[in-house]
């Protein structure tokens, strides 16, 4: 029963509570080994949406019009990061949502899964340094259009944390060339002043790629964690425009 339902039943002169507008529902997929799902859900709520956890065995997304594939170590990163998750039942629903034009945001391990299923191009190799890297990085916004990027400005520099060991994006030269030509790079690692220099690249990713977007603009993957930067008190709100855009189209 909803709060508004209880309100209407009220008697004895208590005025009926006006039902709040239905909040937009965003599915947050939970794999065994996901560990950023709660943060993703909190970020969705912060952006005004309703977060709906969806277990990886589910064949549907509970009617949600947008979805987050959160960070973590789905299936313990067995075989390859994201490889097992890519074949779980819920990914059929994610593919359907992608085809129907629904918004999908893959964060860190979620980005690796989007690469494994081929919704975004390329693959992840271990970081150049072979170390797990957990720190803030700067990103330059390369695209500020489409469903998910429209609240950003082109050339804007965001500061977001990364936490991964396999974020070294790789694709064959002809694929890199096609991605660049089609504007598939959403974010690049850069200096605090927005220069995409090699020394601003934490993991060795080709062309400093930190995030990719598909041609239709509805599937976005990035290694940094926007869901961890949605409150000033907790280090900043640079991640909020992305989450807000997702919630608005759910």
């Amino acid at each position, binding site marked *: 029963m909803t709060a508004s339902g209880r309100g209407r039943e009220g008697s004895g002169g208590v005025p009926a509570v006006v039902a709040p507008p239905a909040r937009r529902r965003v599915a947050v997929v939970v794999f065994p080994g996901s560990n950023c799902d709660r943060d993703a859900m909190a970020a969705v709520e912060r952006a005004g949406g309703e977060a709906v956890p969806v277990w990886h065995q589910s064949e549907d997304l509970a009617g949600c019009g947008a979805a987050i594939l959160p960070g973590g170590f789905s299936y313990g990163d067995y075989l390859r990061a994201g490889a097992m998750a890519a074949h779980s039942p819920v990914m059929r629903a994610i593919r359907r949502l992608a085809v129907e034009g629904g918004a999908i945001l893959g964060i860190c391990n979620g980005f690796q899964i989007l690469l494994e299923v081929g919704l975004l191009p390329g*693959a992840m*190799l*271990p970081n150049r*340094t*072979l170390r797990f890297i957990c720190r803030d990085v700067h990103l330059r916004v390369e695209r500020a259009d489409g469903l998910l990027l429209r609240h950003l400005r082109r050339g804007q520099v965001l500061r977001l944390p990364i936490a991964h060991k396999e974020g070294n994006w790789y*694709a*064959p030269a002809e694929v890199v060339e096609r991605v660049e030509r089609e504007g598939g790079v959403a974010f690049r690692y850069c200096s605090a002043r927005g220069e995409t220099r090699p020394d601003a690249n934490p993991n060795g990713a080709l062309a400093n790629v930190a995030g990719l977007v598909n041609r239709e603009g509805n599937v976005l993957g990035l290694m940094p964690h926007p869901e961890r930067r949605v409150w000033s008190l907790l280090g900043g709100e640079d991640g909020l425009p992305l989450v807000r855009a997702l919630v608005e189209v759910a």
Partner: protein
Amino acid sequence: MGQVEVRVKLKEDVLDPQGEAIRRVLAGLGYGEITRVRVGKLLMLEVDGSERPEVRARLEQAAREVLSNPVIEDFEVRLP
């Protein structure tokens, strides 16, 4: 039933920082004759009917679609 081996290797033009780190350790221990190390995966599968062509075709498919990532890896299915 037979044991089938699937060998998964990084493609030649993909850098392998893990292999390079191992090579450096080996060189530091005096194994200077080892000039290159590449790390791959060996999967050992127990398979029913691996002598049948349709099962072999299915093994190739599983290796291509699940066990390897064609963007960065090559695979080889070794039958008993």
